[in-house]
């Protein structure tokens, strides 16, 4: 770049600066639900300014640009209208699209610039396309697993980590070679191919329960690859947007790994695929107490404080609207009802909040784990709907449990615990839950939606 900018370019750069500020404000306003929608407007305004600035800058060949923008909009609108339960796979898919864009632009720049390219530029370009490539296929795999097109369970084989390592090492070796010999242009597609393969093999061993972590991590990768693209194009705006996205993904990954009791390095290297040993052994006959909807309704309406603990099972049973009716019915009787949200409830960070908000449950009734855990001893009834492992007291006490050390919701400390569950079969992870055998636990056997519906009917009928 020359030191002197033309007048037109200065305007463009100022537009980019304003867009950067708007992007940062956009994220700042996300700190609270009351200001969050300003955040969208700021983001949209920044985006429009940046795109207009770019069009202004390069006054040429608008026809294909317009066609691509229209096509993208046609694809984007239905992706903005998916059901709230499908948001995780939509998010994974959009990580894939973002990474695809970055990889394609990087590839085009490679062929435009080589062989006259500085070593630094070639290094950043390699980072851009390798990170972009693996994020593209990795996100597609994650979306496939979430959409249940691909099997949810982890696929593992002997020496898997070694094979993955080899693929990545080969891609990086090619990158180093290209930095030293950028004229070897026919090696470039091979490097991308290896990155694409690595993305697939990275996600294959990961099970459905780990998806919140995986999505966050892919988010971080997508952001970092975009920042690398900013270095290549010398675009400050893109560096800033990529850095913001990257740090967001990183923070969410850290939160998720803590909530799953995985070390951060464990997450960084994608080794979250350990198959959880099923601790089904040593099952002596233990008794559980069960209750009918009538009994449950009587206990709930006599309670002063109720905490509902929803899990993804509630969303699978499509029970959230019945849960809202239950919330309404109990609130009308003067019962204080709140919802305890575990960080990994749902299939991506914050997913459960969205599902409950969709059912019109006020957000100030949704309380995070750390804030609500101290309140369980003073709670009359904890009602667990479709959650299992996140309520398992063995995580606190049983060092042999596969989930030992994972932070859980202390529902067992409530005066009465009620668990809606189809049967006594152990859950997804195959871990037995001692909560069900406690003296203060009542099992409510049945489909979540039907059972909550029956409780609501009982509450409605039993006035006075």
């Amino acid at each position, binding site marked *: 770049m020359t030191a002197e900018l033309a007048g037109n370019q200065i305007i463009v750069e100022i537009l980019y600066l304003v867009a950067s500020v708007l*992007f940062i404000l956009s*994220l700042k306003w996300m*700190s609270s*639900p009351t200001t969050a*929608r300003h955040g969208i407007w700021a*983001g949209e305004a920044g*985006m429009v300014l*940046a795109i207009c*600035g770019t*069009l202004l800058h*390069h006054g040429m*060949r608008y026809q294909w*640009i317009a066609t*691509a*923008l229209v096509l*993208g909009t046609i*694809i*984007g609108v239905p*992706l903005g*209208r998916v059901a*709230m339960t499908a*948001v995780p796979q*939509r*998010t994974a898919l*959009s990580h894939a*699209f*973002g990474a695809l*864009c970055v990889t394609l*632009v990087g*590839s*085009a*720049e490679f062929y435009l610039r080589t062989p006259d390219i500085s070593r630094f*530029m070639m290094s950043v370009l390699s980072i851009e396309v390798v990170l972009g490539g693996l994020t593209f296929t990795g996100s597609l795999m994650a979306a496939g697993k979430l959409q249940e097109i691909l099997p949810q369970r982890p696929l593992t084989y002997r020496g898997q980590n070694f094979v993955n390592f080899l693929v990545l090492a080969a891609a990086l070796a090619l990158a180093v070679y290209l930095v030293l010999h950028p004229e070897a242009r026919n090696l470039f597609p091979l490097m991308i191919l290896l990155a694409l393969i690595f993305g697939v093999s990275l996600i294959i061993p990961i099970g459905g329960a780990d998806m919140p972590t995986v999505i*966050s991590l892919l*988010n971080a990768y997508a*952001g970092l690859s975009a*920042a690398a693209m900013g*270095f290549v*194009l*010398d675009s*400050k*705006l*893109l*560096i800033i947007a*990529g*850095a*913001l*996205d*990257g740090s967001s*993904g990183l*923070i969410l990954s850290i939160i998720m790994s803590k909530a799953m009791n995985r070390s951060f390095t464990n997450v960084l290297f994608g080794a979250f695929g350990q198959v959880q040993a099923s601790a089904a052994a040593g099952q002596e006959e233990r008794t559980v107490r069960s209750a009918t909807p009538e009994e449950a309704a009587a206990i709930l309406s006599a309670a002063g404080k109720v905490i509902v603990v929803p899990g993804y099972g509630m969303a699978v049973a499509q029970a959230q609207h019945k849960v809202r009716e239950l919330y309404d019915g109990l609130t009308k009787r003067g019962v204080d009802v709140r919802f305890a949200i575990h960080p990994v409830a749902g299939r*991506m960070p*914050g997913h459960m*909040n*969205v599902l409950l*908000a969709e059912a*019109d449950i006020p*957000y*100030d009734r*949704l309380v995070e784990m750390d804030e609500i855990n101290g309140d369980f001893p003073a709670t009359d009834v904890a009602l667990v709907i479709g959650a299992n492992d996140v309520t398992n007291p063995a995580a606190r006490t049983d060092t042999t449990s596969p989930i030992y050390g994972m932070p859980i919701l202390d529902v067992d400390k409530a005066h009465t615990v009620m668990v809606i569950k189809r049967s006594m079969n152990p859950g997804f992870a195959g871990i037995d839950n001692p909560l069900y055998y406690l003296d203060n636990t009542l099992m409510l056997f049945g489909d979540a939606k039907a059972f909550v519906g029956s409780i609501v009917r009982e509450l409605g009928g039993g006035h006075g």
Partner: protein
Amino acid sequence: MSSSSTLINALFIFVLAGFIGFEVIRRVSPLLHTPLMSLTNALDAIAVVGAIVLVGEHKSQLAEILGFIAVVAATSNIVGGFLITDRMLRMFKSSRPAPKP
């Protein structure tokens, strides 16, 4: 072409923006982590500007084709990302009456 000083400039911007990102996003309520992710996704699609330049400048056939696909992919993220974030945020309602602005 890029001298070492533009590299240093770029690194400065990257590191400082990363810090801002960390501090700003740490304060985002966990309540909104899903909309946060779809919003950052839409913002990240600002990569579209690089792709637009590729299509507009038409330096080679290959660059134009790759750029075209990249514009489509990024635009779908911008449109879809903002749409779904807005839909989600509209659902978050308080049980208390909304404070007057």
